[in-house]
């Protein structure tokens, strides 16, 4: 149950990272279009910082979200593995009743 939820959220976060990527691409395309005939304005350092730095930050955020989603997927797998080991250990520790085995 828990690993499944974690895996689902991981997939969702990867999807969110793709959404952020789309938003960043949209921003980059928008700025490129706005630059048509306006390059002198966009080239001012403060404007460039506002647009370029923002897009760079979004790209970075998208990458971190993608990594987070993948990490969640990894956590789900680890959780699964630990769960199996613990179940196996519990099963192994159950004493076998041999009272009637010889009969």
């Amino acid at each position: 149950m828990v690993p499944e939820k974690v895996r689902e959220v991981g997939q969702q976060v990867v999807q969110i990272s793709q959404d952020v990527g789309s938003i960043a691409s949209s921003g980059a395309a928008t700025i490129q279009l706005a630059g048509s005939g306006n390059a002198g304005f966009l080239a001012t350092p403060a404007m460039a910082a506002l647009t370029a730095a923002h897009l760079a930050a979004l790209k970075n955020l998208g990458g971190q979200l993608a990594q987070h989603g993948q990490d969640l997927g990894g956590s789900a797998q680890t959780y699964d593995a630990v769960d199996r080991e613990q179940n196996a250990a519990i099963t192994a520790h159950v004493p076998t009743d041999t009272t009637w085995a010889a009969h």
Partner: protein
Amino acid sequence: MPSYVQLTACNPQAFIEAGQTYQRMAAGFGRVRAAFQQGMAVLDGNWQGAAKDVVTGRGRHLDGGLVAGGQEADSTGQVLLTLGHALVTAQTSLRAAVATATAADAAAAGKIGALAAGRLIATFGSGGGKAAAIAQEVASIPTGETKVASPGTAATIAARVASRADFGRLGPVERDVIDRVTAPTGIIGSEGLAEWTRRQKD
């Protein structure tokens, strides 16, 4: 900094459209963040232990990134819209002025127009923060005195833009022209403006 040629040739509508797109991006961030928070809530309700704490901490950090991304998109959108609208106003004033100018006055038109645009942008961007920083940079026109060869036509040029011009940056010649045109009987004085508008309609 924008030159006279840039001011007349630029495409303010592109800035306005970019600003609108950025504001839609900000709305998109709101939806993305809501989905992310839902996911984090699911984890919070279904998972316990040290591994979850690490993930939750990282999730909070990324949530902050989504909030900042949305705010930056909104802020950038506002700056672009502000700049676009300011340039529309400046361009309209400048074109109307230049339409009545002689070639000899073109330089004065450029100087006054640029100052007016700078002042307009500064006015729209006076709220502080990033918009003001952009406005100050874009409006950074060097101080100088422009020779006004023909005060009559220069007055007409100034009339269209002087109400918003940055008088502090003008030289004495421009100031003299503007003082005259802004007087009640001047071309943009209460009486003069009505007369100018009437003549334009005729």
